[in-house]
């Protein structure tokens, strides 16, 4: 099983995840940057290949959110080492235009760890997301996330 950890809970600007994966960097790189594989684990149906500078869109795969379109803006692709994109986090409210809001930056750093790979995922920039949206998103959480968690459980046990 992979081990994940988070930074100190006082950090409000970023999420940090470390995970040890039992696969070489070349394999992890393909899972991260081949859009068809990315779709599988990320839970989205992006429709075009990733390339630096590209905007890639697709609908969410979760049945509850399949009407929502997700767009990611690819920034950096350093093969087998570093991959990053920007997006609007948690942009799941219907009819809301998030385009004027700042984006968060998601980075993936790959390092050798024995025969496998140490992957570090960082999403940063949350402090720039409007506080009002956080509060709103949080109150939405309480209503919506129980259902979403159920969908994910179903997906994983299928």
């Amino acid at each position: 099983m992979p081990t994940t950890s988070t930074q100190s809970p006082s950090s409000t600007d970023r999420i940090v995840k470390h995970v040890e994966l039992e696969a070489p960097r070349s394999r992890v790189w393909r899972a991260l940057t081949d859009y068809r594989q990315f779709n599988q684990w990320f839970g989205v149906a992006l429709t075009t290949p990733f390339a630096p500078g590209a905007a890639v869109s697709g609908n969410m795969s979760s049945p509850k959110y399949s009407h929502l379109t997700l767009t990611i803006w690819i920034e950096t692709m350093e093969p087998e080492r570093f991959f990053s994109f920007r997006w609007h986090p948690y942009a799941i409210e219907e009819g809301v235009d998030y385009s004027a809001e700042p984006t968060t930056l998601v980075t993936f750093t790959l390092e050798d760890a024995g025969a496998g790979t140490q992957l570090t995922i960082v999403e940063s920039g949350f402090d720039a997301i409007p506080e009002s949206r956080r509060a709103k998103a949080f109150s939405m959480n309480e209503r919506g996330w129980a259902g979403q968690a159920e969908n994910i459980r179903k997906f994983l046990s299928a």
Partner: protein
Amino acid sequence: MLERLARGEQTVGELAAPHRMSLAAASKHIRTLEKAGLVRRTVRGRIHYCRIDPRPLERADDWLRAYERLWDTRIERLAKLLRHPDNEPSPSE
């Protein structure tokens, strides 16, 4: 409205004024904020006073933690995908 409330207690009238809202419309909007647990209203005489309930905002950090759990789920799926190399799609689509 929340921005104004962040500066301190306000009456419904004071909250409505800058938005050119009727008292009824403002009251309705405030009720939504009350339901979301963001605002508390107290009635003294005929005046309704509103104040921000700081607890949900303190839990903004909890929002990030809840969001973070989405990543945990994705990471689990990624690990699962990598444990089954045979499900890698062929390079030629």
